[in-house]
């Protein structure tokens, strides 16, 4: 199993995502200007501030050459995970429904919180138990999910812990086919007890198809 982790100018969590993927498989960086995905089995679009988040979060990154290929890869059923800024990019790219708006409080917020797994039938939740709560940090300034209608909810903020005013406490969604998943919290930052939690590994294990440890 080989993950490709996209790096845009302004990406911040790509190295953490890379290392997190390496805990469950192989992983390499995909450079934004290079449309060649190098035959990876799954793509992670990581967090950060691609293109400074200027204009609108995720707006400019979605047009990079690598994203053209990621879109094609996703349309063919390839597993794609968007984390935080990556989620915003996937929404802008039309791979996921909806859009991410500025937090209701307008401030950047960084906190460890719990999310509940709503849908265990996606490429990145198969290894999770239904309604399982995962302790994962979130950090963003534009995480208020706006759903255009019925969407396939993958994760919700648990225990009234919605940090951003997201509609229906939605923390993450999947496309209809379930191969593309995006969420605001950061599973790649929950892979080591030393730094707080290992709950995020379940998402990556799901993609690998491993049973949960």
């Amino acid at each position: 199993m080989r993950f490709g982790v996209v790096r845009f100018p302004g990406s911040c969590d790509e190295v953490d995502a890379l290392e997190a993927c390496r805990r469950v498989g192989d992983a390499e960086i995909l450079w934004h200007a290079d449309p060649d995905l190098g035959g990876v089995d799954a793509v992670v679009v990581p967090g950060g501030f691609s293109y400074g988040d200027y204009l609108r979060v995720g707006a400019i990154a979605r047009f990079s050459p690598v994203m053209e290929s990621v879109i094609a890869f996703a349309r063919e059923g390839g597993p794609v995970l968007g984390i935080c800024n990556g989620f915003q990019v996937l929404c802008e790219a039309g791979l996921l429904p909806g859009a991410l708006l500025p937090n209701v409080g307008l401030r950047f917020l960084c906190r460890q919180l719990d999310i509940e797994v709503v849908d265990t039938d996606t490429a990145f939740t198969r290894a999770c138990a239904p309604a399982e709560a995962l302790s994962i940090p979130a950090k963003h300034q534009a995480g208020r999910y706006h759903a255009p209608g019925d969407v396939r909810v993958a994760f919700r903020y648990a225990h009234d812990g919605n940090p951003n005013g997201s509609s229906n406490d939605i923390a993450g969604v999947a496309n209809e086919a379930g191969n593309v998943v995006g969420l605001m919290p950061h599973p790649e930052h929950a892979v080591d007890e030393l730094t707080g939690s290992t709950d995020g590994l379940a998402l990556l294990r799901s993609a690998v198809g491993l049973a949960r440890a």
Partner: protein
Amino acid sequence: MRARVLIRPKEGILDPQGVAVERALPALGFSGVANVHVGRLVELDVEDVSQLEAMCEKLLANPLIEDYSIERPDAAPQPQDAGPEAPRR
């Protein structure tokens, strides 16, 4: 040709920035203000004005959450406008 694009939060979508401004004004002694909305302003020189619409659809605005309108101040200058800016790089 100088053009400007005004981008606003779509109707029905919460605009916390507008709310924050509306709340802050009375504290500063301003009253009688309502319906505040905060959006973005993009100003640019375009050779081919007909491209503007496509630029907005593709990049400048997200139609799911934003409305936009295109204006060409040169075509009908506003009395209060500061006038065309000096070219910069």
